[in-house]
């Protein structure tokens, strides 16, 4: 089949291309099972080498190639032509400054990530036998969903609250905090909840639910945000995620 791509482009180095513009490319011999990333590569490798995008693993694990494809945030390597049809529109994710073509400035996104103390804290002495800390299977299960996050930014850049206010930490940072807040081995939950209780923390979330369908890892993002909100309101992380109600 033939597929027409309409791609949002800009190149700050070329005077005539500094303002964003649309460009069309047509590809033949496209299979329904082709990934969008493969087709963007075909455009780059066969037609126009200047088309610029980030990508690496090509199977939805590294999180490099988040783009807005037919109006929805996707990883280009994890969406197939059969799910999109013969006209495919590709533009950069929204809410972050566009550098060139499909490449946006990820620094504001990673700055928000770093705000929530995205690292394990436990200053207690290590187990005397020199072995691992213990954790039950159900305690491990409570935060399993949020460990899947690959920091691709699909959720944060699908969020109208983030579009309206770039100071909002955004869903991805909250998911990262969730991963530690509900880990029984971690001790910095209260500090993280303080950070997330600030005006640009979780309360900017208006439960619009754009983040959950945007997640290429099928994390229940909105649910995780809700659990963090409840933990702040209750002042404890205990009893919020029931073992029999694990996502």
């Amino acid at each position, binding site marked *: 089949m033939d597929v027409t791509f309409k791609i949002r482009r800009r*190149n*700050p*180095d*070329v005077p005539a291309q500094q303002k964003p513009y649309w460009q069309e490319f047509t590809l033949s011999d496209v299979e329904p*099972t082709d990934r969008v990333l493969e087709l963007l*590569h075909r455009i*780059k*490798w*066969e037609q*126009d*080498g*200047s088309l*610029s*995008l*980030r*990508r*690496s*693993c*090509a*199977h*939805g*694990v*590294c*999180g*490099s190639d988040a783009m807005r494809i037919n109006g929805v945030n996707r990883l280009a390597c*994890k969406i*197939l032509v059969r799910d999109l049809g013969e006209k495919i529109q590709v533009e950069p994710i929204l809410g972050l400054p566009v*550098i*060139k073509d499909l*490449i946006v400035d*990820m620094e504001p996104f*990673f700055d928000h990530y*770093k705000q929530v103390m*995205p*690292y*394990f*804290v*436990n200053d207690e002495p*290590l187990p005397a036998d*020199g*072995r*691992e*800390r*213990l*954790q*039950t*299977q159900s305690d*491990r299960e409570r*935060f*399993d969903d949020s*460990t*899947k996050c*690959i*920091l691709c930014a699909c959720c944060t850049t699908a969020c109208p609250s983030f579009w309206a206010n770039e100071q909002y930490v955004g869903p991805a940072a909250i998911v990262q905090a969730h*991963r*530690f807040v509900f*880990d029984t*081995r*971690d001790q910095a939950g209260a500090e993280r909840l303080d950070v997330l209780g600030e005006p640009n923390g979780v309360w900017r979330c208006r439960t619009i639910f754009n983040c959950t369908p945007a997640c290429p890892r*099928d994390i229940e993002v909105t649910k995780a945000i809700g659990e963090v909100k409840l933990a702040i309101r209750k002042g404890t992380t205990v009893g919020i995620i029931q073992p029999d109600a694990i996502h």
Partner: protein
Amino acid sequence: MQIHKHDAIIIGAGGAGLMAALYASKGGADVAVVSKLYPTRSHTGTAQGGIGAALGNLDDDKPIYHTYDTIKGGDYLTDQHAAKILAENAVDAVIELEHMGLPFDRTSAKRISQRRFGGHTREFGKELVRRACHAADRTGHMILQTLYQQCIKNQVAFFDEFQVVDMIIVDGVCAGVVAIELGTGEFHIFHGKANFFATGGWGRCWSVTSNAHALTGDGAAIALRRGVPMQDMEFFQFHPTGIYRMGILITEGVRGEGGVLINDRGERFMERYAPSAKDLASRDVVSRAIYLETRAGRSIKNRGYVHLDIRPQTVNRYFAEEGKDRSDFIDGATIERKLPDILDFCRTYLGVDPVHEPMPVQPTAHYAMGGIPTNVEAEVVIDAAGTVMPGAFAAGETACVSVHGANRLGTNSLVDLVVFGRRGGMRMADYVKGVDWTPLPKDAGGEIQAEFERIRNGSGKSRPGELRAKMQQTMMDNVGVFRTQETLQQGIDDLAELRERFYTDLRIDDKSRVFNTDLMEAWELGCLLDLADVTARAAIDRKESRGAHSREDFQQRDDENYLAHSLARHDGNWSAPSIQTSFDKKVDLSLWEAEIAQGIADDQQKFRPKERVY
């Protein structure tokens, strides 16, 4: 050119690089990590099944069994003292990862859960052992995330999206590296006392690969061009179970959980090739078996792939035949819980649900056993005698310690990068305290800048994409699982022609500075071409079959002539190099030699090179 000065420069932010950064900085060194990708994009994050360590949480296990499996898996080309360090340090490293917060799956006794993996046994091959510590089927993702998180906590300096393109060597000492800031196109010099290469592999030399697009062997190619020999490059692992045609990895953990390989006749064919370990024989054995089934006309629909079957009814039938307890039987929920990413890949890319249908798989280019030679402290060595290049370090896939020998065991890549990343980090912290800065030469970076201008201004007819596709095809056809003198010579000839076009007829479209991915991809192609060439040349010179290197014209292993590491040298002429290989670097056989010294009878020696049977 902007100059950045740090005690230790870490090139690459995957598992090995971040581990080294963490331990060097904990040891007091001022560390900078320079990476062409954001750290969390690194390929360590795609490792699925587990990290091997003899914790013994579910089965009796000891590091010496892990050592034995690693040496046997490597078809005795493994350096035995290095394998011993690998297996012993693995236990500490995994426990430390848990202490850093890594969310391993748990046993009912609240300990780190472990699963079976190919080639991992207890009591020297007696039976398969649960050794692979796992976090669902995203163990590498959790290792990468955990290490990056800890680096943030320890305030390690990161230069994200800075791509290293050359190393600076002054009188035999590595004094730093040259990098391009991708966002601006500007060149920077990183002046370091210690310079640690952790740049990963080069699976993108082949057309069907599990490897990320970023895996273009930059660090190895840079070192090669600057006089560091490449060790054991002929050994490149094809993982038996890549998704048909796409190459995306399906973890060995599927077979670890009971999955079996089935041919077009419905036979579990691995019973014929490896009567004891069957589907969990080492990867080289299983990949060859799939090719042999294909040649015999027994691939599915005769199309060159076989089925990987994890359906509960199939798995439980074989479990019952093997006399396993009913409590070991699996159901759909077990698969959903233990292999969620695998299910997601198959459902997304194939429209196949592995709970109800078998997965179509074929061997996929996966892992470089060879690379930059190092000692067990991750110091780069430059000759058969083990002479160290001061200031240069390497670990992970880009390095060759050698713990993997001629074939790596599953899970040992993660073990390698945490163990030798950690050792290298610690070593660098000491090293930088005891040495002075090597002054930079006046023209540092000049040669590589000129090379980039050549590529940028190329006005020929050959697009990088076309040359890369041709390279990948000839490597797949001629330097793949099975090799002969003829195929290898064909590969060498094809690569020579492609290199000539790369240097005389290249053209790229993008002439701009900001994020010029056209330019960077073209330069990366040059790296791949060099490493492909070295691989083919080492392979044509090793006239035996060992591990992942299968010569149809020399089918036997030849310990008399080839129980040795190959070293391939580049003469420094970038556009038309002469590559020389030698086989004079001895394999460390110290564990076997200790057995001889203890007077243990030949047939009782565990570490004597012998025929591999699984």
